[in-house]
């Protein structure tokens, strides 16, 4: 695909703009911002990746991963302001997910240790982990707000913080991971996954593309469950003090 064909592809941006204008949907500004941002961001990433692939240096691969984790943390931390030290907890979670998945992939020689594999897979893992982190934090805060009375009840009856928050923690872990598991049940029936489609369009053998897609799906399962469980167990102790008192005012200050 050339720059010329990419410019032609902008027709697909014009269609929603015309519809938005004529139907007064008010989506023009956001559509233009989204288009410009995606062009700049993806082109920049494309050229950076080209440079990193050419350099074949682990330093640049590491730097890319650090940048991904930093961006993911910056995005997810806004949802967890009620949890003390959420930034560090997110960083630990993302690093853990990254190390776990890459250790299995590289250790079992499932993928070769090159930038071409490590960076895109890391991007998918950290990106998915970020979304899961946001889903978990949203749900956990909502569960605690809705069931504050039950948490306090268990404490007043002599329960520990872990016992008091167990139901809310498990519900939040389940609720945040279910979409990932459910979406995998119907995958391929309605739409082909983006990565697989991209590979097929780029000329790869469809069966090979399926193999890679399956690998990614399995990795996403690990990333999803690991993120929620780790973030959950790192987060809940900060909602209690050393006297096992529930610091519910932290939850109330959340919107």
């Amino acid at each position, binding site marked *: 695909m050339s720059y010329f064909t990419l410019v032609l592809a902008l027709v697909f941006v014009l269609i929603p703009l015309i519809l938005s204008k004529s139907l007064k949907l008010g989506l023009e500004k956001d559509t233009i911002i989204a288009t410009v941002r995606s062009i700049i961001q993806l082109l920049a990433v494309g050229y950076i990746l080209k440079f990193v692939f050419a350099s074949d240096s682990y330093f640049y691969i590491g730097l890319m991963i650090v940048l991904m984790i930093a961006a993911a943390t910056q995005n997810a931390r806004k949802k967890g302001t009620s949890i003390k030290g959420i930034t560090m907890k997110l960083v630990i979670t993302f690093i853990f997910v990254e190390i776990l998945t890459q250790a299995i992939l590289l250790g079992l020689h499932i993928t070769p240790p090159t930038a071409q594999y490590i960076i895109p897979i890391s991007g998918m893992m950290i990106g998915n982990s970020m979304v899961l982190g946001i889903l978990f934090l949203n749900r956990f805060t909502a569960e605690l707000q809705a069931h504050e009375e039950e948490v306090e009840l268990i404490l007043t*009856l002599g329960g*520990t913080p872990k016992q008091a928050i167990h139901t809310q923690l498990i519900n939040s872990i389940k609720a945040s991971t279910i979409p990932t598991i459910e979406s995998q049940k119907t995958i391929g029936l309605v739409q082909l996954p983006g990565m697989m489609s991209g590979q097929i369009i780029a000329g790869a053998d469809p069966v090979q593309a399926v193999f890679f897609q399956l690998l990614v799906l399995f990795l996403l399962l690990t990333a999803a469950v690991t993120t929620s469980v780790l973030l959950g167990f790192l987060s809940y102790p900060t909602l209690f003090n050393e006297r096992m008192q529930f610091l519910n005012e932290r939850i109330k200050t959340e919107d």
Partner: protein
Amino acid sequence: MDNIQEAITLQNVSFSANGTEILHQLNGGFPAGNISVLVGPSGAGKSTLFRLLNGMRSADKGEIYIHGKNIAQFDPTDLRRTVGIALQQAPMLQGTVWKNLSLPRKLQGKELTKEEAQKLLRIVNLDEQLLDRKAKELSGGQKQRLSIARTLVNQPPILLLDEITSSLDQVSAHEIEKLIIHLNQAYQTTIIWITHSLEQARKVGDYAYVMMNGKIVESGNIDLLTHPSSDSVKNFIKGDQS
């Protein structure tokens, strides 16, 4: 009350939240084995004091002693099993009466026996047939009885009751009063009861404490609710009767 053994002793206890002082230098003691009533206008700090006694919050200043032992030296879970609390709203977990009743034992990694459950239900005058019913479907009075029975699973020597009859009809409230007096007499449980009804306070209480603006303004024999000495308490009682 100098010669009476105290279940709870307060020494200069103060507590603030969000920069506002809620309890101001509380002193005094709650006698063991008696029913003490805690009365006062809304916002006086009565429920907050209960949260301090049950260890759900810690005092900013001062000391609290339970049977002579500083509250800070208690393991928090032991403290909450020693000082049980029942609340006005009688919160229930999703699930059956059995699930709710057996909860305190489960929290200790143990099981409540069927016989123990039946005995507890008999004490609070609840039908044994209710064990399989959903707790949230019970009436207000039944929930309150279940809440008390659940607190009793831990056999707390001290029981705090926070307006437990205020949302009940008169008949149910009267039944709960009889139950609490029975608990006190049969098991020598120390009861501290927050109530907004002075009539109830006079009926059940041995000792009275009047709280206003975060302070205990008067305390002593229950008669003080009939013959208060301070003007503020006189006005409070007059206001309640008018």
